[in-house]
């Protein structure tokens, strides 16, 4: 599904190399987790994949179902099925949540040559998805993320994911800021989307999320590289001993 090969990325504005050869492939139907110390490049990887400005790919590449996604505009990547749940969801004053989501959904459908969804069908869809994530109607009326608590913003990201039904989902620290109950809600939301044709890349610092969203593969990222890959046990090891052992082991 998602193939990342020897990806080198530097900042566009300054001569700072952030990703130094990332190799990673996420198969359809699988959940991969990425853990790693602060500043190791996890969010950068997610931004580069989704097309944010400010980064320059100096070597390597990435494909989504065989297509070179790095050559696409951000909106084309979204239409191709890529979704990033942001570590810091953005507030957009003046743009209503419903308008935002409906515009996004219909833009994606249009790009894929599908018919736009009617207002009535959309309302039905979003009500149903919001209900399972316990997002109330009042929140949907407000401007995108404005005045939302940290946890509400994260739930809103998952709502968007549930409505847009992307094929490849990247979740950047979606668990941070969530209380225990919200963590369960969000995980249920993610698990509900798990199926044979969808891939997940879950960035997290904590085992707790992985208790709910059981990963198939766990990667450790440090200093812009994947330095170790293993099964679910690897996350448990990090939880118990931190990164010191792993870092010395590969050094």
């Amino acid at each position, binding site marked *: 599904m998602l193939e990342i090969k020897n990806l080198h990325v530097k900042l566009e504005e300054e001569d700072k190399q952030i990703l130094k050869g990332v190799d990673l492939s996420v198969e359809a139907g699988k959940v991969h987790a990425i853990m790693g110390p602060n500043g190791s490049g996890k969010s950068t990887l997610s931004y580069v994949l989704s097309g944010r400005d400010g980064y320059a790919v100096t070597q390597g590449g990435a494909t989504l179902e065989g297509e070179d996604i790095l050559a696409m505009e951000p909106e084309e990547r979204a239409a191709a099925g890529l979704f990033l749940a942001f570590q810091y969801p953005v507030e957009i004053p003046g743009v209503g949540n419903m308008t935002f989501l409906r*515009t996004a959904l219909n833009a994606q459908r249009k790009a894929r040559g599908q018919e736009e969804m009617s207002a009535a069908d959309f309302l039905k869809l979003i009500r149903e998805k919001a209900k399972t994530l316990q997002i109330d109607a009042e929140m949907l009326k407000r401007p995108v993320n404005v005045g939302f608590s940290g946890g509400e913003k994260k739930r809103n990201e998952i709502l968007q994911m549930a409505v847009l039904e992307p094929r490849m989902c990247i979740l950047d620290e979606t668990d941070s800021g969530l209380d225990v109950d919200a963590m369960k809600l969000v995980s249920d939301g993610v698990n509900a989307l798990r199926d044979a044709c969808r891939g997940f890349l879950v960035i997290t610092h904590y085992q707790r999320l992985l208790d709910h969203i059981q990963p198939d593969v766990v990667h450790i990222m440090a200093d812009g590289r994947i330095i170790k890959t293993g099964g679910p046990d690897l996350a448990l090891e990090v939880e118990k001993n931190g990164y010191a052992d792993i870092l010395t082991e590969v050094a």
Partner: protein
Amino acid sequence: MAVPQVKQDATEARLAGIALPEGAGWAVTARQAALARVREMGLPHGRDEYWKFTRPDTLIAPQAPSAALFDAGEAPLFGARDRLHVVFRDGVFDAAASDPLELAGIEIERLSDAMARDIHWARDLYGTLEARGQTPVARPLAALNTALATDGLVIRVTGKPARPVSLSYLHDSETSDVHLHHVIRVEPGAELTLLENGPAAARFNKVMEVDIADTGVLHHVRAQGRDHERRAVTGSFARLGAGSVFKSFTLTVNGVLTRNECVIELTGDDAVAHVAGACLGDGADFHHDDTVFVTHDAVNCESRQVFKKVLRNGATGVFQGKILVKSGAQKTDGYQISQSLLLDGDSQFLAKPELEIYADDVACSHGSTSGAIDETALFYLRARGVPERQATDLLVLAFLAEALEEIDDDSIAEELTDRLKAWFDRRA
């Protein structure tokens, strides 16, 4: 102060060969007085304090630059409303296209008819509010209008008419040079909504004198026409009595040159005046200027100025706004915000916000900002699949929303917002 020779020359060049329109004695007197004011002040010059950002030459040239006609290919705004519809074609009242001038709660007639009559209530107002608005800042083009205008409406609001008065300004001649003058008197407790729509002329000079008696209310919403080459200079002069309300909103899209002046005098306690504007400018030949002067001369009045401009491809926006609080105008609540969204580095916003306060117990604030599109928000929208153009449009609408919210009637605000969306969609 003597008028500099260059200004005298330009003024006389403009006035050469012009004869004042005929009418009743009082009308002739008012026009002569206005013409004297024009000569006394001289027509605007680029060195005048409030003309530094906007070049007046094409507005004062003897010959109006021509303006190509523009067919928007869409239903005119406000057309679907239940309204009293009045049409002016290149500044001339079009009786055939208009509804009969009858509406319960108002007296309405054509300016030329009123000015032909020896006795008329408009006599006390025509040119009076405009003349009051000449100090401390001269507005010579408004005086020129008072001198030359023959057409327009005089409206006396005595009740609360069920329908708005809706004016359509059609532009049929590429060379039309028009002076239109309305006089509106809102009697105590009366209330009217006045809508204006259309480009009006190649060069349009409009003055609206508004006298609102105690507890009267006037809502004013206008959309200036989208003809790319049209020029407009407008002056709204409003005097507010105690507990009265004046709310005015203007939407401007296109037009090479627009100068909207608004002069408001709060003369009775507890009066409320809101002026707002939303403007969309595209291209180096777009120049839009809001010049507002609000005078607080009574206790416990509220004034709000909310102006938003979206500028791209080298467009220029100007805002000159002043709040003057006279001594004794205690408990004044004055607010002013002017903001521009610059969609590229070529566009510019020039702002001159001013506060002048001679009372000690007042709350006045003003702010002016100029900013680019929020790149983080733009990326967030695009990452959800919204194409760049459409995402920008969403953010532009969000930016303008704050000005559109100043319109009290939600259905009118919605109609303007929907129209903006439709324009965006069509271009996309």
